[in-house]
Structure formats: C-alpha cells, structure tokens
C-alpha cells in the first residue's frame, strides 16, 4: 500500500468508526477497525479530535502485536468501551493469550481502556515513572473524563502497573522480541517506546505526532533531544501516537521537529526581550497554523509550557 493509500484508508476507517460509534456503538460487535501495518503488527487509528462523548476517547493510535505464544496490547485506548472493542478485535485475529499490556504514557486516551483487559490478567508494563504519573494525574483525569465521556467515575479505573522499565527491557512474545525503552522527559516525563525486532517497527506512540499538533506535557527541549535519539534508530516504519503510520523514518519526524524548534526559538526571543507569558502566548507559533490540526486547541498551551521551561535558561 502506498503512503497516500494508507492515509486514505485510515481516514475512511476513522470516519466510519466515529459515525458508527456515534449512531449506535453496539453495531461494532466485531471490534475496532485495524490496519496490519506489518506482519502481526495491528494499529487502530484514533480520530483527530478532542475526546468526546461521540468518539468515546478513541483519539489516539492503539493496537497490538501477535507473537508465537502471546499477544501484547500497546495502549488499550481512551475508555473501557474502546478497550473492550480493541479486545474483541484481538480475539477476532488470534486465540493466543493477551499476556502483556504496554502503556506508553499516562494520558487518559491511551490508558482508560485498560480495565477492559482485566479478565486476561495481563502484566502491565510502563516507564519507571508511570506509576507516579498515574497517581498524580488520575483523580484529575477521572473527574474531567467522566464529564467528557458521559460515564460514571467508577467506570474509569487507573491501570495498576505491574512491571516498570527504567531503561530497556526485552519482552518475548514467543519467537518475537519486543524492546521496550524508557526515555528521559520529552512528550511527558514517562514516555515508553516499543520496537518490534521482527518487522523493525518502531512504535513511537506520542513521541511522534503527525497531522495533529504535538502536545508538550513534559519538556520541549527534552522532546527535541529524544527525537534526535529516535531518529538514529533504524526502522522500517514508525507508528505515531496520532496520525498515519509511516515508512519514511526518520523523515516522518521532520514536521514535529520544525514546530518544536520554532517554539523554542520564538519563546527565547520573547524572553530575551523581557516579554511576558501572555505576550508569548499571543504571538508564538502562528506561522505553524496551516500545518496542524487542532492548532487552536493546543498551540497556546504549548507556548505556555515552553515559556515556563525556558525562562530558567
């Protein structure tokens, strides 16, 4: 499949999903649409929207990798409902046990589906700082997302991480090794990536945003550094946290790098002129508007986060 075809296909899937979920969630009995981007590597693309009652928090890329003996789910999705649909999808492809649940970070639309896998009793993997991040953020996420998703608070359970990764960990799915890597602060302070050695697939999750504007919730300078590190990894394809899977690696990183570099450059200029946070928010990043979806929802927040980070320089 060509890159364009893949984009188009994913867009069709996304639109279909939203329409069906919005009209009648129950018609999705067979689960979520997924794309087998490489042998045994299945990706479901979330929509480029903020989480809502209509999309059930299905706004991030999630999926699973099937090995010889076991299945690893990478991010169970933004709500128990989405997690449940993903589980049905896994079951429609394989009967192998779902032994591992890998959480790339604590953001709600990546983790709230975890409770749907409780019956599988999976080991739950995350960055060494993930448990702390979940602890600090869950109460806020639960209170916010009950309103957004229109569910009861008790329906949203923060996942209980069983295994943490402080540097690197190899996970054997039976003749197929996944390399989990914990990164220094970047998109968040607890980002984890997955590398499938068999197909040379880098599952970057939210360390890579495509089409949808990146969200700085860790460190903008750290993210640029981690991006440089990721770009040295030799991969056949990359799975971003948002946007289409790409076979162009590390070229697929270029847009994100450009945006982050512009923020750093222009926030520094405001700081140098003794400008205020408010003045930075009003001006910085505007030239990037045509390149990103949801620009108005996140650019100013990114400028704010960058400003308070860079003012210590």
């Amino acid at each position, binding site marked *: 499949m060509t890159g364009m075809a893949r984009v188009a296909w994913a867009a069709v899937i996304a639109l279909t999903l939203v329409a069906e979920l919005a009209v009648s969630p129950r018609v999705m009995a067979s689960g979520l649409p997924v794309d087998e981007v490489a042998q045994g590597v299945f990706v479901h693309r979330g929509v480029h929207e*903020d*989480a809502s009652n209509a999309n059930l928090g299905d706004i991030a890329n999630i999926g699973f990798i099937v090995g010889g003996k076991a299945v690893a789910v990478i991010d169970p999705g933004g709500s128990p409902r989405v997690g449940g649909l993903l589980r049905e999808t896994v079951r429609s492809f394989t009967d192998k046990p779902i032994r591992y649940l890998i959480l790339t970070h604590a*953001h*709600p639309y990546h983790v709230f589906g975890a409770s749907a896998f409780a019956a599988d009793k999976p080991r739950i993997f995350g960055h060494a*700082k993930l*448990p*702390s*991040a*979940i*602890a*600090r*953020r*869950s*109460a*806020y*996420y639960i*209170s*916010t*997302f*009950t*309103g*957004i998703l229109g569910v009861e*608070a008790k329906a949203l*359970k*923060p996942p*209980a991480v069983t295994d943490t990764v402080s540097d690197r960990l190899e996970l054997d799915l039976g003749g197929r090794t996944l390399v989990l890597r914990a990164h220094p*602060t970047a998109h*968040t*302070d607890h980002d984890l990536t997955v590398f499938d050695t068999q197909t040379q697939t880098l599952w970057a999750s939210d360390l890579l945003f495509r089409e949808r504007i990146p*969200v*700085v*919730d*860790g*460190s903008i300078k*750290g993210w640029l550094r981690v991006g440089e590190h990721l770009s040295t990894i030799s991969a056949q394809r990359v799975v971003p946290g948002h946007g289409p899977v790409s076979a162009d690696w590390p070229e697929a990183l270029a847009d994100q790098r450009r945006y982050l570099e512009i923020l750093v450059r222009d926030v520094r200029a405001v700081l140098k002129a*003794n400008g*205020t*946070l*408010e003045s930075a*928010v009003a001006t910085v990043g505007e030239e990037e508007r045509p390149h990103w979806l949801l620009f108005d929802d996140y650019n*100013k*927040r990114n400028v*704010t*986060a960058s400003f*308070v*980070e860079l*003012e*210590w320089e």
Partner: protein
Amino acid sequence: MLKQAFKALFGNTIKNRMRQERGQIMINSRSGLGAMTALILGLATIFSAGAMAGEQDERDESRWPAIRDFIFYENQNIQDGSEVIDLGVPYRALDAAVVPVTMKALFPQTKERFIKTLYLIIDNNPSPLGGMYKFNGKNGDASITTRVRVNDYTYVRAIAETNDGKVYMVKRYVKASGGCAAPVAKDQEAAKANIGRMKLKLPERIVAGQTTVAQILVSHPNNSGFQADPITLLSIPSYYMKRMEVTYNGDTVFTLDTDISMSTDPSVHFSFVPKDKGEIKVRVIDSKEKVFVKKWKINPVPDNQCSTPRTAEKKTQCVEG
C-alpha cells in the same frame, strides 16, 4: 498547632474573626500540614463531594459563602471592586498547571490610602485561597502577576482590603481545559532537582524613586498532596512554598502566604521603589520549614540621568543587578 496555623496565615487580628466551628474542622484535619492546607482541608471537608468537572452548573458559586466566612468577619461588607482592582485571567485556562493571573491596583498607593492585603481566591480548587499578599503602601504599586493551577471550571476572585478596613472584590470565570493538561508538575524530577533556586528578572533600566516591576521565580515542585496512589491509596505527600518575603534595604516590599494552588516553580511579578542603591532580599519558606534566601544588588540611576531615551550603548550604563 491550630493557633500557630491561624497566626501564620492570618495574624492575630483576623484569627479572632474565625468562628469556633471552623476551627473544629481544622482540628480534625491532618496534622503537620501548613496553615493554608489546614484551611483548605477544612473547606474540603465541607465540600467533600464537590468540584468534579461536568457535575457542576456553569458559574457555580456554591463554595464562595464558606470561603468568604472563613476569611472575613461574618457580615463583612464586600464592595464591588471594579474601581479598586482589575483581575486579568484567561477565560479558558490553556494549561491547567500554569494559568497566569494579574491583579492590578487601580489607584495610586500612598501612605494615606493603600491596599493592605490582596487575596487571590480560586473557588473550586482543592485549596481555594491561592495567595494572600500583604503590602504597606510603600512599594509603589500593589499589582501582582502570578501563575496558579486551576482544577476545574471556577470563579477566580481578587479581593483587596484597603488600609481603612474596606474590602473590595472583582471576579472572573475561568474554564479549565480538559484532556492531558493536568494541574501537576510536567517533570517531577526536574521540579525537585533545583529546589530553592531563585531568579530575579529586572527591567533593563532602574531609575531611583520610580516604581519598578520585577519578577521573582522560585524553583519548587509545589506538590499538592491531594493526589493518592490509585493502588495503595496512600496519598502523595504535599510539598509546597508557603511563604515569601521580599524586602528592599530591609523594608518590606510585600509578603505572600500561599500553598498548593501556585504552579510548580512559583512566579510573582511585583513592584518596588528603589530610592537609593541597595539590595533586594527574597526569603522563601516551604512546607518542610526549609528556608531559602537570596539577595540581589540594585544600583538605580538618578532620576535625571536615565529619564530620557538613550542609545542602546548608553542605556547599559543605567543597568545594574
């Protein structure tokens, strides 16, 4: 503990205004926490079920009467403050962890009439009293800019108590942002690494006798202590800046009593009037009673020397600090 808590927070005068039943709530709250947290835990007890996004009416003010009665005399007349204080806060909080707030005094501060105390209230935060700033009328301008956490859709209030005992209030409604912008430190480790480090930002040109705006930044995680580990249900300890004292040549510029509503790495823009050359001293006390002190030399130029625009080269001669 209770007496100390009240004294630290409100001083003896206001302490006497507090009603006994509110004190009981504080006694029942966790021991060993700072005064502000004790106050807020008291409020949290009253409103244990409150403050969930999506569960509230827009423009909810249900917490305000209790907050008001906690801080002021019962029946305190609170007047419209639109001639006294301006409150600048974004209608939508872009980043719930860092919401800029500016409280601007709208009349000249003189020894005859000045804002003595400026309260920043965030109704629906777990800790509604975001800060209590005290002035003495000598620092030129009682305006303050700071950054706070906003947990939820809420009114934010600036309340000014003038030296004649009158109380004025303005309020603005703020919508917290959903999604991933949790009101926590983005990088916990970095926030802890440099605790107590400070940075003072001064304008390029400081002129003797003129009101000068400076920004003080304090590195501190300012963890709230309201979060609990979802598995162990043990709460993560709070750790925050509770007091800041700023002096110029020994004279108080302002003091701030605060707690967990301030953003990670607390920031305050404030005014002072440097009459002679001297020293700004900032003293910060955190909830573990750690004290951090830093001083900066200020060498203002005489009023006549730098009062007119100069070339960039000459301007540098007017810079000090």
